[in-house]
């Protein structure tokens, strides 16, 4: 019998609809994989009962002829989305034991579409990190190993590292992610899967633990482009509860998928050719250019002159917003309280926050507090907001001569756990290609393109115009069809 956990979202949906298998069989198969993969530490909470419960509903709906768009598809939920009755931690000690009494808009949409929940996926604490090494609940391990005979544990990327690891290891066919500065795309690239961050505002932020509100955007992660389109259709949509939600209809992205790029122009930003970068990254990029040409696209060089300022801009704006957003963790309303003997209110705040936040979260709150403080606000924060405007203008100008932009997703393949933790800056630099699109709020996706000499996946990134998720998905599909990426991690866990 087919191993049901090898099926894509589309195959599960269609196979269930056709009666090839029951949703309960699918849920049981994935539950078993989840239970057998503790070594990856991809889940903070497993919810096998929820998966079965949704599957029973899906099977009953099939019998009754009332199937929903994703009936029978079990998924993983990044533990940044509030889930009613299921612990939601943002991988922090601060929120350990926090059980929401409400459901995030995005997760509710997925349940309404018929999905079941396999569990809550591990991540970098408050989504701050690029390697999933800042989680209070331990590192997530990538299922991938280098082919050098060594046994080094590799980073699954971050912050959506539980999502990427779980999909690559066939613990779930798809998962939610969130992307503030690359947190969907970089982990997707590191683990040989696909992921799309839609235009800022497509997916409601309501019920997602806030990190940097002008950047945070939810999106799907899955094994291929079609699955990303299917998932995104069922996550996106206007939500009056989010002031920045886009009041636009959700297109039928899946139905309009087409890898025929005739008449399309693909921009190649010259500033993304970095000095001293691994030549395999540039080689993969060149191969991607050839693939899009083969799909009928015309390739043009473009310039994004302020590229080199994107990371420093991000590391002012994101911490500034984080310091403000995370002020809510005060030991009073929810989450951890640390009340030293005889302490007053101010001491309780300070002790609670010292105990509840990990080092990277504290670092970013401190930077944010500093750049927003009197005397420095204009020099740092206002200046960064102005440079952000220039970065956004760069893209607007570039899109006058092209339809989508092709670039690498990350400057390296997955690195080993612990290799970059000593120097926060070297970790930040891993998001060099991902951050500009985040600052400009543009849709961007990563698709697996090649294996490097170490046998590790590399990803190509497609950045599109605002609201043009279709253009991004189509270019992604063109690469997917030509790259023929079928490699998967050999099971060791």
């Amino acid at each position, binding site marked *: 019998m087919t191993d049901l956990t090898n099926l894509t979202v589309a195959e599960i949906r269609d196979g269930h609809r056709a009666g090839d298998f029951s949703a309960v069989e699918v849920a049981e198969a994935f539950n078993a994989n989840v239970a057998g993969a503790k070594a990856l530490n991809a889940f903070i909470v497993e919810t096998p009962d929820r998966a079965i419960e949704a599957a029973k509903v899906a099977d009953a709906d099939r019998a009754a002829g009332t199937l929903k768009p994703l009936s029978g598809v079990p998924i993983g939920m990044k533990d940044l989305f509030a889930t009613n009755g299921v612990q939601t931690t943002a991988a922090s000690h601060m929120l350990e034991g*926090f059980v929401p*009494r*409400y459901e995030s808009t995005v997760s509710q949409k997925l349940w309404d579409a018929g999905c079941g929940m396999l569990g809550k996926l591990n991540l970098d604490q408050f989504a701050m990190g690029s390697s999933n090494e800042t989680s209070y609940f331990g590192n997530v391990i990538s299922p991938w190993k280098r082919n050098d005979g060594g046994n080094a544990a590799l980073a699954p990327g971050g912050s959506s590292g539980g999502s990427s690891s779980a999909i690559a290891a066939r613990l779930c066919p798809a998962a939610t992610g969130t992307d503030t500065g690359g947190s969907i795309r970089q982990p997707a690239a590191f683990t040989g899967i696909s992921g799309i961050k839609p*235009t*800022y505002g497509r997916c409601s932020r309501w019920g997602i633990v806030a990190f940097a509100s*002008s*950047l945070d955007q939810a999106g799907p992660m899955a094994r291929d482009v079609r699955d990303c389109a299917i998932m995104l259709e069922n996550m996106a949509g206007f939500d*009056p*509860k989010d*002031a920045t939600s*886009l009041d636009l209809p959700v297109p039928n992205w899946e139905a309009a998928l087409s890898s025929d790029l005739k008449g399309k122009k693909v921009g190649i930003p010259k500033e993304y050719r*970095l*000095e001293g*970068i691994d030549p395999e990254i540039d080689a993969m990029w060149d191969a991607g250019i050839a693939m899009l040409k083969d799909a009928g696209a015309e390739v043009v060089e473009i310039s994004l002159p*302020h*590229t*080199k*300022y994107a990371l*420093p*801009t991000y*590391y*002012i704006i994101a911490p500034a917003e984080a310091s403000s957003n995370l*002020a809510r963790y*005060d030991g*009073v*309303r*929810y989450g*951890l*309280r640390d009340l030293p003997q005889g*302490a*007053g*209110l*101010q001491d309780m705040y*300070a002790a609670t*926050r*010292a105990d509840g*936040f990990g080092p990277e979260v*504290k670092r970013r*709150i*401190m*930077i944010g*507090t*500093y750049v927003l403080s009197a005397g420095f606000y204009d*020099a*740092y924060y*206002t*200046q960064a*907001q*102005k440079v952000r*405007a*220039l970065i*956004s203008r760069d893209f607007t100008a570039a899109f006058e001569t092209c339809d989508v932009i092709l670039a690498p997703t990350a*400057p390296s393949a997955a690195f080993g756990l612990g290799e970059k933790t000593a120097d*926060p*800056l070297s970790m930040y*630099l891993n998001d*060099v290609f991902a951050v500009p699109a985040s600052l*400009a*709020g543009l849709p961007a996706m990563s698709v697996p393109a090649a294996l490097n000499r170490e046998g590790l996946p590399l990803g190509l990134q497609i950045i599109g115009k*605002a609201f043009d998720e279709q253009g991004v998905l189509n270019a992604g599909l063109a690469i997917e069809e030509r790259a023929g990426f079928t490699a998967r991690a050999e099971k060791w866990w």
Partner: protein
Amino acid sequence: MRCGEGASGAASPDKATDMAIDQATVRKIASLARIAITDDEAAAMEGELNGILGWVEQLGEVDVTGVEPMTAVIPNTLRLRDDVVDADPLTGGNRRDDILANAPEPQHGFFGVPKVIE
């Protein structure tokens, strides 16, 4: 790895000196952020924060004459909600028990805090 010219390079020395932070400043920031820190943590953070802030200093070299600070990345209009009490059952009123359900110290239907007035 270098991100174009100067992305990871040093900041301009004048500004770096002006804005370099010492341990007293680290303690001041921690106090503003309501995070208790030990002397060892303050010492470690002094180096880290100077490294990061020295690196972001390079933004000072960008000519931003006539550029408005960007606050909304995708053009959008701020909506007004309908002027209806509890228009949304999730975010409306009468949810006291739900709101207190995760409070560390709920007391008589309120959030409990340590004594603030002596």
